[in-house]
């Protein structure tokens, strides 16, 4: 019989929602997963096996797609091979008081289908920084507390990487690392010898070897196609569609409903807890209430904060759980002010085979150990060395049979790398609702206003100078450091809108991702981050979600929720 009552409701089916669904259902909770977008089942990836000639327009974006998806396409991420995973901006508007690149995937799996798969732990340096420096609120969780949860999610998801023993970037439970290529190996050596800096292979959620467990029989190893963003029919990378949702489904405890837009939490003033969520059907507009003992908000940092800001009551006139006034504030991302390039002489008798879905990583070294700068925190670089392909002949006069012959030789090597810098939490970087402006569902528009500030600007100087210094130290030529304009959101790491902290006056969530003022609501997407490191954050969302689910079930059993 159709019922609207469950043990748990999970809002969102992406990186965090998938983990919440898996953990809660495996612990026996009848769990409703609500996804605002369309259904996607593992294997339903329409472009995944298309050859280059099967894609229209040489895989370039058309003006019509640009017209429908002006925000998504201005970032350069969508192509005909993957554009179906990016939202229609006209149908899904928001207000940019400052330019904000809000990349969204409204479908089952969310952005876990499109993510770049880079998977790094935050370390003691990150968890201690706010407290030591008096920035924002102290993390209420230590590295030692979260480390076992990193172990768990790495093992299940399958993270490849190398063991390096770095304090600022703790090692994890790794599958074998991808190869660095010939140029990257020498780059690594020279950085180590000349500057004492590390270059390592990226740590990524691609299966370089079979998983060490048998809980995901649908997943095979990475086939080195580097088409991950289309969805992988081999299950070669981690997404909620390939991994956590199938696990949840297998328990028989999950009900997954797509096209359900959660717009409000239902709060019972007498009981002092949430009783469920209000939903609009994205296709029919039908309104439904669903009820549960606990609610996990995993709708993304902007999405979850939106639902909370839109959930007002006499108890929470300024938004759900917003006693601190911090809900929707302290938006962070990773500052990415431009990439750096250089050409590489030599190495013409070597190349690589296969298409590696990964690059190199230069972990943070600024403000680590004895290094002290005139700004706080630091940055890391992601990049790769590669041989040029046919497009190197675009601006070139060679023609005819000679051109065809020349294209058949691999081009010269080049190196490119991009710095990702930590952005400090700042109260003024915020989102709110504009109730006078409505979307097609009649829901208020989200307004966002976030910029990079003084500390980030100071750091940018090092991000650029250091890139040039490293590329030159390696002996590369024609070093170019670009200054691209960066909009907050462009790293697709938006976060911080419902930060966790020990003090309910200054934070929205407690150390277990529970809303301070309403303990049966958990928020486990990027919203909870009180600071942001310079590492890609998804692995941390997985770990904190698994830990929160464990806590939620324990508290339920104790009768505390």
């Amino acid at each position, binding site marked *: 019989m159709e019922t609207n009552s469950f043990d748990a409701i999970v809002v969102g089916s992406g990186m965090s929602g998938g983990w919440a669904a898996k953990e809660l259902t495996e612990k026996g909770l009848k769990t409703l997963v609500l996804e605002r977008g369309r259904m996607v089942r593992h294997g339903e990836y329409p472009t995944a096996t298309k050859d280059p000639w099967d894609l229209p327009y*040489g895989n*370039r974006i058309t003006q019509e797609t640009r017209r429908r998806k002006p925000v998504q396409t201005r970032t350069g991420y969508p192509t005909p091979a993957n554009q179906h995973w990016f939202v229609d901006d006209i149908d899904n508007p928001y207000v940019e008081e400052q330019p904000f690149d809000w990349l969204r995937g409204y479908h089952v799996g969310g952005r876990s289908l499109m993510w770049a798969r880079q998977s790094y732990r935050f370390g003691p340096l990150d968890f201690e920084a706010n407290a030591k420096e008096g920035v924002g609120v102290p993390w209420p969780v230590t590295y030692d507390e979260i480390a076992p949860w990193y172990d768990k999610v790495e093992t299940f998801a399958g993270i490849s990487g190398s063991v390096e023993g770095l304090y600022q970037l703790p090692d994890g439970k790794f599958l074998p690392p991808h190869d660095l290529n010939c140029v990257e190996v020498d780059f690594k050596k020279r950085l180590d010898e000349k500057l004492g800096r590390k270059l390592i292979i990226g740590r990524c959620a691609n299966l370089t070897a079979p998983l060490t467990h048998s809980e995901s029989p649908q997943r095979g190893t990475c*086939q080195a196609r580097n088409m991950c963003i289309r969805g992988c029919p081999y299950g070669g990378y981690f997404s909620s569609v390939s991994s956590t949702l199938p696990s949840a489904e297998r328990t028989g405890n999950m009900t997954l409903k797509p096209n359900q837009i959660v717009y409000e939490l239902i709060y019972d003033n007498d009981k002092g807890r949430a009783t469920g969520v209000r939903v609009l059907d994205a296709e029919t507009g039908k309104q439904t209430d669903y009820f549960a003992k606990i609610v996990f908000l995993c709708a993304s940092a902007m999405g979850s904060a939106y639902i909370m800001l839109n959930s007002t009551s006499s108890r929470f006139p300024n938004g759900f759980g917003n006693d601190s006034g911090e809900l929707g504030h302290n938006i962070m991302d990773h500052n990415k002010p431009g990439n750096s390039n250089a050409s590489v002489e030599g190495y013409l*008798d070597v190349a690589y085979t296969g298409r590696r879905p990964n690059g190199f990583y230069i972990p943070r070294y600024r403000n680590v150990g004895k290094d002290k700068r005139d700004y706080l925190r630091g940055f890391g670089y992601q990049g790769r060395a590669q041989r040029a*392909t046919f497009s190197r*002949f675009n*601006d070139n006069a060679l023609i005819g049979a000679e*051109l*065809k012959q020349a294209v058949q030789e*691999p081009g010269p090597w080049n190196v490119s790398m991009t710095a990702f810098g930590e952005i400090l939490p700042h109260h003024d970087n915020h989102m709110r609702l504009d109730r006078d402006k409505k979307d097609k569902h009649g829901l208020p528009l989200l307004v966002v206003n976030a910029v990079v500030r003084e500390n980030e600007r100071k750091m940018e100087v090092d991000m650029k100078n250091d890139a040039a210094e490293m590329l030159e130290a390696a002996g590369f030529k024609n070093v170019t450091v670009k200054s691209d304009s960066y909009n907050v959101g462009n790293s697709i790491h938006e976060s911080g809108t419902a930060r966790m902290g020990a003090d309910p006056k200054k934070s929205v969530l407690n150390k277990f991702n529970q809303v301070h003022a309403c303990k049966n609501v958990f928020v486990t997407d990027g919203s909870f981050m009180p600071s942001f490191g310079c590492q890609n954050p998804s692995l941390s969302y997985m770990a904190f979600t698994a830990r929160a689910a464990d806590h939620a079930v324990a508290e339920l059993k104790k009768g505390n929720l």
Partner: protein
Amino acid sequence: MSDAHDDTSPEMLERRAILRRAAWMLGGAVSAPAALAILQGCSAKQTPVTAAAPDLKFLSPAQLDVVAEIADIMIPKTDTSGAQDAGVPAFIDLMLADVYDKAAQDRFSSGFAQFAAGAALAASGKPFLEQNRGQRTEFVKQALEQALGAKQDGKPFILMTRELTLLGFFTSQAGITENMDYEAVPTIYHGCVPLAQMKKPVYWE
């Protein structure tokens, strides 16, 4: 369209255009003389073939012929397919129509007119397609070198055409599979392999 193609659309040019389109329609399997036979008696203006020709979305038939010839000069048929075998002319038309913005379209159109006028001027008034292959090749080379040497706002016509030709060709099945070692499923990445041990060149895009 602009008056761009008026510079290159005398009756003879139209006739050639029809022949070329007929050849593409027939998949290149019919020789030019055979196509000519098919068309014998057709006046260019009657255009029985134009009606059946591939739908053009941006270029005029006359422009398409010039662009197709430039693409063919850049990537000719040798022991492997050339740009026309790979469908590059139709690709360029589609890209201009659907992918390029208005500013780039306008730059292409005005650049085309300049190219056509310049080509005729360089050959005592003979339109580009009426010149022999050697003359045409020489003019394309000159146009490329001139464009590469000049500082310009936006990519000039000849380099737009070149970029589209390379993109169209090396995303086509013929362009990729006949010129590169394309593996849809490489299965594994090897980071450092001597070229001597590789089938080359590997398709890495």
